[in-house]
């Protein structure tokens, strides 16, 4: 993308961020364990870790942005970044495939077996009379669980969210198109619209969760349906949040005129991430809400 010569290799100066990063992640996770086990210090250590994480991202990415603006990077560094981001998203794909795979396994193997299918016919031994339908609102044994009253349908908020998230993919492409034409005004407008749609998605998702908890008794504790529902939508929501924060950073940088039609790796990386989150949602909408 850039025109800088590839004849010389570029190696960054020694940096304190990796060490701070490792200590930060450790602190954060250490705090989470203490919090989960009801230690008073837990939330405070978690908070310290989270604050340190924010400081880390600002500092580390700040350094990278400075180096980029000072023109230290050549084409080879640019492709390293691109390939690195590609493989990072690949690992994220496998992370989500895990959860979709679990959903498939539970729906097609575990639950039919519990309902008496297969040569083992488990339910005849353990839970006589329990039959399998998806979603399994009635559980084989609800002693430790609170059964949900109804399942989440595909209409209403989920449908609106699908439309919103797909549109945000469109507005992001609009911003990209503007960037390629060096039209900074439309770039900022496109990015701002995308962020706005992302935030609306987030709010609607929160409303939906509130509704599920308050009125449908659909919680993390309503057995396997609630578990998979919140696992999949929750991790997706987390990724939307991260993506929206990254878009906000990109918007700030766009307003400072950091990008040009031939040097905008950061924009593209975030755009890939956002489109990835989009695609995951389509899978979610079909497999979790609809089918």
């Amino acid at each position, binding site marked *: 993308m850039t025109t800088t010569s590839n004849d*010389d290799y570029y*190696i960054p100066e020694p940096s304190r961020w990796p060490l701070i990063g490792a200590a930060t992640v450790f602190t954060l996770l250490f705090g989470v364990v203490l919090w989960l086990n009801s230690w008073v210090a837990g939330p405070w250590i978690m908070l310290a870790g989270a604050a340190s994480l924010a400081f880390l991202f600002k500092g580390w990415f700040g350094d990278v942005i400075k180096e980029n603006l000072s023109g230290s990077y050549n084409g080879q560094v640019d492709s390293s970044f691109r*390939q690195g981001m590609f493989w990072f998203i690949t690992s994220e794909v496998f992370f989500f495939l895990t959860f979709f795979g679990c959903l498939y396994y*539970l729906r097609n193997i*575990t639950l039919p077996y519990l309902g008496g299918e297969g040569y083992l016919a488990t339910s005849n031994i353990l839970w006589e009379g329990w039959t399998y339908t998806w979603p399994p609102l009635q559980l084989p044994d609800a002693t430790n669980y609170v059964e949900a009253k109804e399942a989440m349908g595909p209409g209403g908020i989920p449908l609106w969210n699908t439309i919103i998230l797909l549109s945000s993919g469109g507005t992001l492409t609009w911003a990209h198109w503007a960037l390629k034409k060096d039209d900074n005004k439309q770039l900022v407008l496109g990015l701002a619209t995308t962020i706005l749609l992302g935030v609306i998605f987030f709010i609607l998702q929160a409303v939906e969760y509130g509704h599920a908890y308050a009125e449908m008794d659909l919680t993390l504790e309503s057995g396997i349906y609630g578990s998979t529902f919140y696992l999949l939508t929750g991790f997706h929501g987390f990724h939307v949040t991260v993506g929206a924060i990254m878009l906000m950073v990109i918007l700030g940088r766009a307003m400072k005129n950091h990008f040009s039609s031939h040097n905008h790796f950061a924009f593209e990386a975030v755009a890939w991430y956002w489109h990835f989150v989009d695609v995951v949602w389509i899978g979610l909408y079909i497999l979790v809400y609809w089918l």
Partner: protein
Amino acid sequence: MSTEAIHADHDHHHAPSGIGRWLFSTNHKDIGTMYLIFSLVMLFLGGASAMMLRAELFTPGLQILDPDTYNNLLTNHALIMVFGVVMPAAAGMANWMIPMMIGAPDMALPRLNNLSFWILPFAAIMLIISMIAPYFPGGGTPINTGWTLYPPLSVQVGMGMDFAIFTVHLLGISSILAAINIITTIVNMRAPGMTYFKLPLFVWSWLLTALLLIMIMPVLAGGVTMLLFDRHFGTAFFDAAGGGDPVLFQHLFWFFGHPEVYVLLLPSIGILGMVVPTFSRKPLFAYKPLVYSMMMLTALGMVVWAHHQYTVGMSEAVTTYFMIGTILISIPVGYMLFSFIFTMWRGAMTFETPMLFAVAIVLMFSFAGVTGVMLAVVPADLQYHDTYFVVAHFHYALIPGSLFGIYAGVFYWLPKWTGHMYNETHGKIFFWWTTISFNLTFFVQHFSGLAGMPRRIVDYSPIFAEFNMISSIGAFSFGASHLLFLYIIIKTVKGGEKASDKPWEGAQVGTPGLEWTLPSPPPFHSFTTPPAIK
């Protein structure tokens, strides 16, 4: 490893001084060195836990460990050896060698590289906390699940498990970031003319290993995250009463766990691909097909995981599929071993320490392959499952298959890394000492396993007493041999005969990599401009 004199022309190439050189490093060699030192420290920690286990098993009955502590140590022995020793050692060698082999100045993403490393010591601290937390008030039961962390037991144990879960997360982050970096380096940083089929075999082996890591580490992370949810947020993923399934965790774990075996094995195969041609003074036999067979191994390795779960009640169709898939793996593995044997065939062979290890690997890893095929067969496995036969099988696979490969690599590249030759006599003594005591430890376990001695158990029937005593004696000897290893390394780092740029009579032939075009030890930044490839 002072290199200022060689590259004083450019201040960028000075090695920074003081502790900051290591803490804030962006240099692939320094980070590689830190990986290797970390791995060596963990080797002694994991080894010490193995020594305690073998001391307990020296005679029947309970002597020094209570059952929970035994299981806790067993879990930690496995986690430390897999994640703390073999993977970091292989990653350290990748860091040191890949940029030099392909003519790159450094890894593609040097800061990310340092992050991958520095997560490891913190993960090790968290692992140690997970081991000792249960002995504090409110800590609950120790982690008595073994490294597989199967529910429902892992849902019930104390807070040590939460630390173990996050240790796995930390290790996963570290491995994924390292894998991203290694693939990007290999794809993007090759010097012009270094085409894929000129890559040294070690580089190929790491390209495939890194691909595997990117595909499997997220799955393990997902699985243990669900475990965490089951433990603390009332979800029902692994509880059949709520519609979940404990076997689901086993699938997730082994979807990671089986390819993980190849993550541990492939870098060693890569090292063999360097060592065997050098000491046979012949190019690698059938280099391209060997690469293809590694690809086949990678692909097949992803789809055979459930052979670890034959006894959990999967349908006959499923177990049959996994049996056939697993047996198919012997094709690429057999191909690799034959390639190495044919490389040796009619070569002008000499037996320096790396070559001794290489020959031992071909022999002993084949043995693990044979017991592996036995275990792959469903009706036979129902008999062997969860006995010491399995323990013997995977120790034959992992100690020769990965640890000895790493030793071969260490002795092969020590002259390049340090600029000094190691003492050949000491190296040979170390080889014979480890190899004999390793076999003494684990060979007898085949018999006790076939006779029905269950694995992962603190006490056993007196009929297995002799086998276990032999095994323990071998294990103590195996452990002690590593003091010599440590001594050889320290002595070589400190001094010794000066190594030439191309040690071993310059016998690196075939596709040896560009590291031999550099001085020993190499300058702080290996290549500042792309080297020319002939």
